[in-house]
Protein backbone atom coordinates (compact mmCIF):
# COMPACT_ATOMS: atom_id res chain seq x y z
CA UNK A 1 0.00 0.00 0.00
CA UNK A 2 1.38 3.40 -0.97
CA UNK A 3 1.54 6.24 1.48
CA UNK A 4 -1.35 8.15 -0.17
CA UNK A 5 -3.54 5.08 -0.03
CA UNK A 6 -2.78 4.61 3.65
CA UNK A 7 -3.58 8.26 4.23
CA UNK A 8 -6.90 8.07 2.44
CA UNK A 9 -7.69 4.86 4.30
CA UNK A 10 -7.06 6.64 7.60
CA UNK A 11 -9.18 9.61 6.54
CA UNK A 12 -11.91 7.15 5.65
CA UNK A 13 -11.73 5.57 9.08
CA UNK A 14 -11.88 8.99 10.67
CA UNK A 15 -14.96 9.86 8.64
CA UNK A 16 -16.63 6.60 9.67
CA UNK A 17 -15.81 7.24 13.32
CA UNK A 18 -17.27 10.73 13.11
CA UNK A 19 -20.48 9.29 11.66
CA UNK A 20 -22.66 9.89 14.70
CA UNK A 21 -21.90 13.59 14.51
CA UNK A 22 -23.49 13.84 11.08
CA UNK A 23 -27.05 13.06 10.12
CA UNK A 24 -27.14 9.30 10.37
CA UNK A 25 -28.92 7.22 7.79
CA UNK A 26 -31.15 4.42 9.05
CA UNK A 27 -32.51 1.58 6.99
CA UNK A 28 -35.86 0.15 8.03
CA UNK A 29 -35.46 -3.26 9.62
CA UNK A 30 -37.84 -5.02 7.27
CA UNK A 31 -35.64 -8.10 7.21
CA UNK A 32 -36.01 -8.70 10.94
CA UNK A 33 -39.58 -7.40 10.65
CA UNK A 34 -39.32 -4.59 13.15
CA UNK A 35 -41.34 -2.23 11.04
CA UNK A 36 -45.08 -2.24 10.52
CA UNK A 37 -47.64 -0.35 8.50
CA UNK A 38 -50.99 -0.98 10.10
CA UNK A 39 -54.35 0.53 9.38
CA UNK A 40 -57.74 0.42 10.98
CA UNK A 41 -61.13 1.47 9.74
CA UNK A 42 -64.56 1.42 11.31
CA UNK A 43 -66.91 -1.34 10.28
CA UNK A 44 -70.40 0.18 10.06
CA UNK A 45 -69.54 2.22 13.13
CA UNK A 46 -69.77 -0.85 15.33
CA UNK A 47 -66.18 -2.08 15.49
CA UNK A 48 -62.65 -1.57 14.21
CA UNK A 49 -61.23 -3.61 11.38
CA UNK A 50 -57.43 -3.94 11.42
CA UNK A 51 -55.12 -4.67 8.54
CA UNK A 52 -51.60 -4.09 7.42
CA UNK A 53 -49.24 -3.87 4.48
CA UNK A 54 -46.72 -6.67 4.58
CA UNK A 55 -44.17 -5.48 2.01
CA UNK A 56 -42.60 -2.06 2.11
CA UNK A 57 -39.17 -0.58 2.39
CA UNK A 58 -37.58 2.70 3.25
CA UNK A 59 -35.08 4.67 5.22
CA UNK A 60 -34.79 7.72 7.38
CA UNK A 61 -32.10 10.09 8.53
CA UNK A 62 -31.87 11.44 12.02
CA UNK A 63 -29.38 13.83 13.52
CA UNK A 64 -29.64 14.18 17.27
CA UNK A 65 -28.07 17.63 17.10
CA UNK A 66 -30.40 18.84 14.43
CA UNK A 67 -33.48 16.61 14.52
CA UNK A 68 -35.59 18.96 12.41
CA UNK A 69 -33.41 17.99 9.46
CA UNK A 70 -34.68 14.43 9.69
CA UNK A 71 -36.10 12.84 6.58
CA UNK A 72 -38.20 9.75 5.95
CA UNK A 73 -39.02 7.90 2.78
CA UNK A 74 -41.16 4.78 2.55
CA UNK A 75 -42.40 2.80 -0.45
CA UNK A 76 -45.28 0.37 0.04
CA UNK A 77 -46.18 -2.60 -2.15
CA UNK A 78 -49.94 -2.15 -2.23
CA UNK A 79 -50.63 -5.74 -3.30
CA UNK A 80 -49.30 -6.85 0.07
CA UNK A 81 -52.42 -5.58 1.84
CA UNK A 82 -53.53 -8.12 4.40
CA UNK A 83 -56.69 -7.95 6.47
CA UNK A 84 -56.65 -11.67 7.22
CA UNK A 85 -59.51 -12.44 4.85
CA UNK A 86 -58.75 -13.69 1.33
CA UNK A 87 -61.90 -12.45 -0.40
CA UNK A 88 -61.72 -9.02 1.24
CA UNK A 89 -58.03 -8.64 0.37
CA UNK A 90 -58.80 -9.60 -3.23
CA UNK A 91 -61.51 -6.95 -3.30
CA UNK A 92 -59.21 -4.33 -1.75
CA UNK A 93 -56.68 -4.92 -4.56
CA UNK A 94 -59.30 -4.45 -7.27
CA UNK A 95 -60.57 -1.27 -8.97
CA UNK A 96 -63.10 -0.52 -6.21
CA UNK A 97 -60.25 0.25 -3.83
CA UNK A 98 -56.49 0.35 -4.49
CA UNK A 99 -56.41 -0.95 -8.08
CA UNK A 100 -52.95 -2.36 -7.43
CA UNK A 101 -52.41 -3.53 -10.99
CA UNK A 102 -52.45 0.07 -12.15
CA UNK A 103 -51.04 1.61 -8.97
CA UNK A 104 -48.68 -0.99 -7.52
CA UNK A 105 -46.89 1.35 -5.12
CA UNK A 106 -47.70 3.97 -2.55
CA UNK A 107 -45.06 6.37 -1.27
CA UNK A 108 -44.47 8.63 1.64
CA UNK A 109 -41.77 11.29 1.41
CA UNK A 110 -41.33 13.66 4.32
CA UNK A 111 -41.35 17.42 3.82
CA UNK A 112 -40.75 18.53 7.41
CA UNK A 113 -40.05 17.15 10.86
CA UNK A 114 -40.54 19.15 13.99
CA UNK A 115 -39.42 17.65 17.28
CA UNK A 116 -41.11 18.61 20.53
CA UNK A 117 -39.71 18.39 24.07
CA UNK A 118 -41.52 15.26 25.19
CA UNK A 119 -40.15 12.76 22.66
CA UNK A 120 -42.96 13.53 20.27
CA UNK A 121 -42.74 15.18 16.90
CA UNK A 122 -44.85 16.36 14.01
CA UNK A 123 -43.94 14.84 10.68
CA UNK A 124 -45.34 16.23 7.47
CA UNK A 125 -44.93 14.64 4.12
CA UNK A 126 -46.34 13.81 0.73
CA UNK A 127 -48.34 10.62 0.66
CA UNK A 128 -49.02 9.19 -2.78
CA UNK A 129 -51.73 6.57 -3.21
CA UNK A 130 -53.25 5.77 -6.62
CA UNK A 131 -51.08 8.53 -8.13
CA UNK A 132 -52.78 11.12 -5.92
CA UNK A 133 -50.32 13.03 -3.77
CA UNK A 134 -51.47 14.80 -0.64
CA UNK A 135 -49.62 16.38 2.23
CA UNK A 136 -50.39 14.57 5.46
CA UNK A 137 -49.43 15.30 9.04
CA UNK A 138 -48.27 12.42 11.21
CA UNK A 139 -48.11 12.65 14.99
CA UNK A 140 -44.91 10.89 15.89
CA UNK A 141 -43.66 9.33 19.08
CA UNK A 142 -39.90 8.87 19.31
CA UNK A 143 -39.96 5.51 21.03
CA UNK A 144 -36.27 4.93 21.69
CA UNK A 145 -32.79 4.43 20.38
CA UNK A 146 -29.51 2.80 21.34
CA UNK A 147 -27.17 -0.07 20.70
CA UNK A 148 -28.66 -3.42 19.96
CA UNK A 149 -27.16 -6.67 21.32
CA UNK A 150 -25.63 -7.55 17.93
CA UNK A 151 -23.31 -4.63 17.32
CA UNK A 152 -25.71 -2.29 15.58
CA UNK A 153 -27.43 0.94 16.51
CA UNK A 154 -31.17 1.28 16.24
CA UNK A 155 -33.77 4.00 16.48
CA UNK A 156 -37.52 3.68 16.38
CA UNK A 157 -40.56 5.87 15.87
CA UNK A 158 -44.26 5.39 15.74
CA UNK A 159 -46.68 7.71 14.07
CA UNK A 160 -50.36 7.82 13.26
CA UNK A 161 -52.40 9.81 10.82
CA UNK A 162 -55.95 9.71 9.55
CA UNK A 163 -56.63 9.78 5.85
CA UNK A 164 -59.86 10.36 4.01
CA UNK A 165 -60.35 7.58 1.47
CA UNK A 166 -62.01 9.90 -1.03
CA UNK A 167 -58.90 12.11 -1.04
CA UNK A 168 -57.08 9.26 -2.75
CA UNK A 169 -59.83 8.38 -5.23
CA UNK A 170 -61.25 5.54 -3.18
CA UNK A 171 -64.96 6.23 -3.25
CA UNK A 172 -66.48 2.81 -2.71
CA UNK A 173 -69.31 3.38 -0.25
CA UNK A 174 -68.52 1.60 3.02
CA UNK A 175 -70.96 3.72 4.96
CA UNK A 176 -70.79 7.03 6.82
CA UNK A 177 -68.65 5.65 9.67
CA UNK A 178 -66.00 4.30 7.32
CA UNK A 179 -64.93 7.25 5.22
CA UNK A 180 -61.56 7.61 6.95
CA UNK A 181 -58.82 5.16 7.85
CA UNK A 182 -56.22 5.47 10.56
CA UNK A 183 -52.74 4.54 9.42
CA UNK A 184 -49.96 3.74 11.87
CA UNK A 185 -46.32 3.54 10.90
CA UNK A 186 -44.21 1.74 13.48
CA UNK A 187 -40.66 1.76 12.21
CA UNK A 188 -37.31 0.75 13.54
CA UNK A 189 -34.20 1.67 11.59
CA UNK A 190 -30.70 0.24 11.78
CA UNK A 191 -28.02 2.88 11.44
CA UNK A 192 -25.98 2.34 8.30
Amino acid at each position, binding site marked *: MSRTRITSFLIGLLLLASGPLMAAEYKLDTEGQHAFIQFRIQHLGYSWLYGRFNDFDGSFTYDADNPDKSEVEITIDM*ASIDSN*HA*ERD*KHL*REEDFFHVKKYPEARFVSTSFEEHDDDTATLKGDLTIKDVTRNVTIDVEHVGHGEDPWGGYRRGFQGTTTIKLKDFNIDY*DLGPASTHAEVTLAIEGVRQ
Partner: protein
Amino acid sequence: MRLGNSTTCYGPVAILFHWLTALGVIGLFGLGLWMVELTYYDNWYNEAPAIHRSVGILLFALVALRLLWRLINPHPEPLGQPLEKRLAIGMHWLLYLFLFAVLISGYFISSAKGRPVGVFDWFSVPATLHDLPNQEDIAGVIHLWLAWGLIILSSGHTLAALKHHLIDRDASLRRILRFTNDK
Protein backbone atom coordinates in the same frame (compact mmCIF):
# COMPACT_ATOMS: atom_id res chain seq x y z
CA MET B 1 -86.80 -49.59 -13.34
CA ARG B 2 -83.34 -49.47 -14.84
CA LEU B 3 -81.19 -46.76 -13.22
CA GLY B 4 -78.03 -47.09 -15.27
CA ASN B 5 -77.28 -46.37 -18.91
CA SER B 6 -77.30 -48.74 -21.82
CA THR B 7 -75.13 -48.35 -24.91
CA THR B 8 -77.98 -46.47 -26.59
CA CYS B 9 -79.88 -44.67 -23.79
CA TYR B 10 -79.15 -42.66 -20.70
CA GLY B 11 -80.65 -43.93 -17.45
CA PRO B 12 -82.54 -41.64 -15.07
CA VAL B 13 -79.50 -41.13 -12.82
CA ALA B 14 -77.33 -39.84 -15.69
CA ILE B 15 -80.20 -37.62 -16.91
CA LEU B 16 -80.65 -36.15 -13.43
CA PHE B 17 -76.88 -35.58 -13.10
CA HIS B 18 -76.81 -33.83 -16.48
CA TRP B 19 -79.60 -31.37 -15.78
CA LEU B 20 -78.53 -30.65 -12.21
CA THR B 21 -75.06 -29.81 -13.55
CA ALA B 22 -76.54 -27.57 -16.25
CA LEU B 23 -78.72 -25.79 -13.69
CA GLY B 24 -75.76 -25.42 -11.32
CA VAL B 25 -73.40 -24.04 -13.98
CA ILE B 26 -75.86 -21.50 -15.38
CA GLY B 27 -77.04 -20.47 -11.92
CA LEU B 28 -73.54 -20.05 -10.52
CA PHE B 29 -72.38 -18.13 -13.58
CA GLY B 30 -75.22 -15.62 -13.33
CA LEU B 31 -74.97 -15.38 -9.57
CA GLY B 32 -71.21 -14.93 -9.75
CA LEU B 33 -71.34 -12.08 -12.26
CA TRP B 34 -74.15 -10.40 -10.33
CA MET B 35 -72.73 -10.72 -6.82
CA VAL B 36 -69.38 -9.05 -7.58
CA GLU B 37 -71.25 -5.90 -8.64
CA LEU B 38 -73.25 -5.63 -5.41
CA THR B 39 -72.58 -2.62 -3.23
CA TYR B 40 -71.72 -2.82 0.43
CA TYR B 41 -75.19 -1.95 1.69
CA ASP B 42 -77.01 -4.38 -0.58
CA ASN B 43 -79.06 -6.99 1.27
CA TRP B 44 -77.37 -9.70 -0.77
CA TYR B 45 -73.81 -8.46 -0.25
CA ASN B 46 -72.92 -11.29 2.15
CA GLU B 47 -75.64 -13.79 1.29
CA ALA B 48 -75.05 -14.05 -2.47
CA PRO B 49 -71.37 -15.06 -2.19
CA ALA B 50 -72.30 -17.48 0.62
CA ILE B 51 -74.82 -19.19 -1.67
CA HIS B 52 -72.31 -19.13 -4.56
CA ARG B 53 -69.65 -20.85 -2.42
CA SER B 54 -72.10 -23.40 -1.00
CA VAL B 55 -73.63 -24.35 -4.32
CA GLY B 56 -70.15 -24.50 -5.87
CA ILE B 57 -68.94 -27.05 -3.33
CA LEU B 58 -72.14 -29.09 -3.76
CA LEU B 59 -71.75 -28.97 -7.54
CA PHE B 60 -68.19 -30.25 -7.19
CA ALA B 61 -69.48 -33.25 -5.21
CA LEU B 62 -72.21 -33.78 -7.79
CA VAL B 63 -69.80 -33.69 -10.75
CA ALA B 64 -67.41 -36.05 -8.96
CA LEU B 65 -70.25 -38.52 -8.37
CA ARG B 66 -71.37 -38.03 -11.94
CA LEU B 67 -67.91 -38.86 -13.26
CA LEU B 68 -67.79 -41.94 -11.07
CA TRP B 69 -71.23 -42.97 -12.35
CA ARG B 70 -70.06 -42.49 -15.90
CA LEU B 71 -66.95 -44.61 -15.35
CA ILE B 72 -68.84 -47.58 -13.84
CA ASN B 73 -71.68 -47.45 -16.39
CA PRO B 74 -72.01 -48.22 -20.04
CA HIS B 75 -72.09 -45.02 -22.07
CA PRO B 76 -74.48 -44.38 -24.96
CA GLU B 77 -72.60 -44.26 -28.25
CA PRO B 78 -72.41 -40.80 -29.83
CA LEU B 79 -74.47 -40.42 -32.97
CA GLY B 80 -73.50 -38.95 -36.33
CA GLN B 81 -70.47 -38.90 -38.60
CA PRO B 82 -67.15 -40.36 -37.33
CA LEU B 83 -65.70 -36.86 -36.97
CA GLU B 84 -68.78 -35.67 -35.05
CA LYS B 85 -68.48 -38.66 -32.73
CA ARG B 86 -64.86 -37.85 -31.98
CA LEU B 87 -65.74 -34.20 -31.42
CA ALA B 88 -68.61 -35.17 -29.12
CA ILE B 89 -66.38 -37.36 -26.97
CA GLY B 90 -63.69 -34.68 -26.86
CA MET B 91 -66.25 -32.01 -25.92
CA HIS B 92 -67.68 -34.13 -23.10
CA TRP B 93 -64.27 -34.62 -21.50
CA LEU B 94 -63.38 -30.97 -22.02
CA LEU B 95 -66.58 -30.01 -20.19
CA TYR B 96 -65.59 -32.26 -17.29
CA LEU B 97 -62.12 -30.68 -17.26
CA PHE B 98 -63.50 -27.13 -17.20
CA LEU B 99 -66.11 -28.05 -14.59
CA PHE B 100 -63.50 -29.36 -12.18
CA ALA B 101 -61.06 -26.55 -12.93
CA VAL B 102 -63.59 -23.76 -12.43
CA LEU B 103 -64.92 -25.30 -9.21
CA ILE B 104 -61.46 -25.92 -7.76
CA SER B 105 -60.23 -22.43 -8.69
CA GLY B 106 -63.24 -20.94 -6.90
CA TYR B 107 -62.48 -22.97 -3.80
CA PHE B 108 -58.87 -21.70 -3.96
CA ILE B 109 -60.11 -18.09 -3.76
CA SER B 110 -62.18 -18.54 -0.63
CA SER B 111 -59.66 -20.79 1.13
CA ALA B 112 -56.58 -18.77 0.09
CA LYS B 113 -55.85 -17.63 3.63
CA GLY B 114 -56.48 -21.06 5.15
CA ARG B 115 -60.12 -20.43 6.03
CA PRO B 116 -62.55 -23.32 5.52
CA VAL B 117 -65.29 -22.87 2.93
CA GLY B 118 -68.75 -23.15 4.45
CA VAL B 119 -71.62 -24.93 2.73
CA PHE B 120 -74.75 -23.19 4.03
CA ASP B 121 -74.86 -23.99 7.74
CA TRP B 122 -74.43 -27.67 7.11
CA PHE B 123 -70.69 -28.29 7.01
CA SER B 124 -67.48 -26.72 5.80
CA VAL B 125 -64.60 -27.88 3.66
CA PRO B 126 -61.14 -27.18 5.11
CA ALA B 127 -58.50 -25.35 3.09
CA THR B 128 -55.83 -27.50 1.45
CA LEU B 129 -53.43 -25.47 -0.66
CA HIS B 130 -53.30 -22.03 0.89
CA ASP B 131 -51.10 -18.99 1.48
CA LEU B 132 -49.46 -19.25 -1.93
CA PRO B 133 -48.28 -15.81 -3.09
CA ASN B 134 -51.28 -13.77 -4.32
CA GLN B 135 -53.33 -16.94 -4.32
CA GLU B 136 -56.75 -15.27 -4.08
CA ASP B 137 -55.97 -12.88 -6.95
CA ILE B 138 -54.53 -15.48 -9.32
CA ALA B 139 -57.27 -17.99 -8.52
CA GLY B 140 -59.80 -15.19 -9.05
CA VAL B 141 -58.59 -14.36 -12.55
CA ILE B 142 -58.44 -18.06 -13.49
CA HIS B 143 -61.91 -18.66 -12.02
CA LEU B 144 -63.47 -15.87 -14.08
CA TRP B 145 -61.89 -16.93 -17.38
CA LEU B 146 -62.58 -20.61 -16.85
CA ALA B 147 -66.20 -19.75 -16.07
CA TRP B 148 -66.50 -17.88 -19.36
CA GLY B 149 -64.75 -20.78 -21.11
CA LEU B 150 -67.18 -23.25 -19.58
CA ILE B 151 -70.17 -21.16 -20.67
CA ILE B 152 -68.80 -20.91 -24.22
CA LEU B 153 -68.14 -24.68 -24.35
CA SER B 154 -71.63 -25.35 -22.96
CA SER B 155 -73.13 -23.13 -25.64
CA GLY B 156 -71.27 -25.12 -28.30
CA HIS B 157 -72.50 -28.32 -26.64
CA THR B 158 -76.09 -26.99 -26.75
CA LEU B 159 -75.84 -25.88 -30.37
CA ALA B 160 -74.46 -29.30 -31.32
CA ALA B 161 -77.39 -30.99 -29.57
CA LEU B 162 -79.84 -28.75 -31.43
CA LYS B 163 -78.08 -29.52 -34.72
CA HIS B 164 -78.47 -33.26 -34.03
CA HIS B 165 -82.13 -32.75 -33.17
CA LEU B 166 -83.19 -30.33 -35.88
CA ILE B 167 -80.90 -31.16 -38.79
CA ASP B 168 -79.84 -34.78 -38.33
CA ARG B 169 -83.13 -35.61 -36.58
CA ASP B 170 -81.42 -38.21 -34.43
CA ALA B 171 -81.99 -39.13 -30.76
CA SER B 172 -79.05 -37.19 -29.25
CA LEU B 173 -81.17 -34.52 -27.59
CA ARG B 174 -84.23 -36.67 -26.96
CA ARG B 175 -82.31 -39.31 -25.04
CA ILE B 176 -81.00 -36.78 -22.50
CA LEU B 177 -84.40 -35.10 -22.16
CA ARG B 178 -86.43 -38.10 -21.08
CA PHE B 179 -85.89 -41.57 -19.87
CA THR B 180 -87.23 -44.36 -22.02
CA ASN B 181 -87.16 -47.99 -21.06
CA ASP B 182 -87.16 -49.13 -24.65
CA LYS B 183 -84.12 -49.27 -26.84
